[in-house]
């Protein structure tokens, strides 16, 4: 069977090959696992008025007794604070809500766009993909500021609306949830379109012909063939958008109002305004858990499904 050879480990690898495999692990250990453990440690510490602003500090010179004292000083009370204060829970829920709604909007807008690009003539496809990526060549911050300009009271959007007599007076856009959604959907659009496009573009056109040949009208072919086969692209696009949107700080801070307090802003306030590094770290760790757990469950299920098929 052809599929079985893919996953089989290569036997008798040379020393060089082993070292090469090690490189990504070393990279992850140095730049992900290390910092992550430091943040976990800070989240278990207490706020102080010292430099750095938390205690206890790890001191290797203090020996075994010192280490035991260090461990004893760590506590979960920052997490208890998070659980006790509804402010945090609300911020988490708001973040998840904003991320869910805007990811859904991105999918609804991104799928037809990606589909259109994938069905365009070969030569045009490269141009269209380029057009999707092009805004990235300008600074993200500048583009968000540009939206402030467009959305403000006498901004471009209101000018157009009044000129077209869609409303007789300018509407309030800035500092609303709508502005946050506009900003997020605009900013994350390429992250949704590109994975969808790459899945749709790779799809064998003979599959659509086969569906038609077997009696499927075009609209039904889309539902029973195209959509199920683009699931990897949908999953990639959704994860690529949903995860960073949950932690988004700049867009809600600049375009949103006081009603849209997302967890990113809470984190910023704890860290910079309150100088409460331990609480800020705890907020970050909970956010990570919130995102990682569902993804791990999903991947686990995917794997099981794959194994069931064997």
């Amino acid at each position: 069977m052809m599929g079985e050879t893919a996953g089989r480990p290569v036997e008798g690898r040379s020393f060089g090959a082993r070292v090469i495999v090690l490189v990504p692990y070393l990279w992850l250990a140095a730049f992900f696992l290390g910092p992550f453990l430091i943040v976990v440690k800070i989240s278990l510490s207490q706020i102080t008025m010292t430099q750095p602003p938390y205690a206890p500090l790890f001191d290797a010179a203090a020996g075994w007794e010192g280490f035991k004292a260090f461990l004893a000083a760590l506590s979960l009370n920052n997490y208890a604070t998070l659980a006790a204060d509804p402010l945090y829970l609300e911020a988490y829920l708001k973040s998840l809500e904003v991320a869910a709604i805007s990811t859904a909007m991105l999918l609804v807008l991104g799928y037809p766009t990606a589909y259109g690009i994938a069905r365009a003539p070969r030569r045009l496809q490269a141009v269209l993909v380029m057009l999707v990526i092009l805004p990235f060549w300008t600074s993200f911050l500048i583009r968000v500021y540009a939206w402030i300009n467009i959305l403000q009271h006498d901004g471009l959007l209101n000018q157009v609306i009044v000129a077209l007599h869609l409303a007789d007076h300018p509407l309030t856009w800035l500092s609303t949830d709508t502005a946050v959604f506009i900003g997020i959907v605009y900013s994350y659009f390429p992250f949704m379109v590109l994975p969808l496009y790459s899945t749709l573009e790779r799809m064998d056109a003979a599959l659509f012909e086969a569906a038609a040949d077997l009696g499927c009208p075009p609209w039904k072919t889309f539902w029973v063939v195209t959509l199920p086969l683009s699931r990897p692209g949908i999953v990639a696009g959704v994860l690529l958008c949903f995860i960073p949107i949950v932690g988004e700080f700049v867009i809600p801070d600049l375009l949103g109002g006081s009603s849209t307090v997302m967890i990113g802003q809470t984190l910023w306030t704890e860290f910079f305004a309150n100088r409460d590094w331990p609480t800020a770290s705890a907020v970050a760790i909970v956010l990570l858990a919130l995102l990682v757990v569902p993804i791990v469950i999903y991947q686990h299920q995917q794997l099981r499904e794959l194994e069931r098929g064997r």
Partner: protein
Amino acid sequence: MEASNCFIPPTVSASSGSTHRLASAAQIPLVQFQAVSKRYGQLPAVEALTLDIYQGEFFALLGPSGCGKTTLLRLLAGFERPTAGRILVDGEDLGDTPPHRRPVNMMFQSYALFPHLTVERNIAFGLKQEGIPKNDIARRVAELLALVRLERYAGRKPDQLSGGERQRVALARSLAKRPRVLLLDEPMAALDKKLRQDTQFELMELQAKLGTTFLIVTHDQDEAMTVANRIAVMEHGRIAQVGPPVEIYERPNSRYVADFIGEVNIIEGRLISTTLERALIVTDSGGHLAITPGVDLAPGAITWVALRPEKLRIAAEPPRQAPENLFVGTVGEIGYLGNMSVYKVRLDSGEVWKAAVANTTRHADRPIVIGERVWVSFDCDATIVLTR
């Protein structure tokens, strides 16, 4: 295909008429291509092609890549629209009928199995679109799985199957809806040679059992000769010749067909005298050929004589009784194929002919070797005279 033995050459002469068992005069063709043309921009793929295919035939479209054979199949399936002409199935003009409403099904060269569906659901796909009750679908799928001997693989996904298994799933899927015509686009191109030969015979058995009309597209002449009972040889979007395999092989109507089907020596010459039984041809290199013309020719005409390698006799000594066509040459190369050997003989007149000899015994008494002088001969009626 017949390979002549050294002593008694059995030459096959196809009698015309006997092979047209399928087409009774009153029968209307199942598929009719009427002056069908297809152009891509300025590029013609199919040109004013007219062809009838009858119920129950195993019909092959044969030609090199780019001859328009696949386009013709896609026109019938409805994936392409003809630029001009009509396509009828059961006497009904398919005109603008979209692919999903046509009474034909296609087996794709890439198989085009749905990777997200199991074998079972791939096969059931077409039946589901028709809104057939679940129980009936299950029964039909079980029937088809048995037909292609894949019962054990019903729950597998296509990427867990071997190439041959996938091919059988594709076949079962395309047969599920009992199409009026089954279209097969290079169905065995992805299989290795041994499996391909087995599959060819299986396909023939299946076709005989089901009685479904099969229309196969292939560039492999052996495959077409094996499976089909009628072949259309295509060239540049037109049909060069249509007929049963024997007729195509033994009585090609042009150098193109003679050359495309099997091995052939083509000798250019000028007709110098002709009667009903004998025509004398002088070749470009000055040799004389005595042949049975079979066609009406005016003396002086340029003609080509096609001579199949297996119809040549080759001997290391001059024959005791000199035949009419005897040439002397030197063996240039020998290709040993196991079942036969092919000798490339450079004649003293300069031409190079191929002669194929069946290896009827395990060890020839005295094998012919490279560089040896040989006497090459053939019968008058072993040749085909071509005028184009």
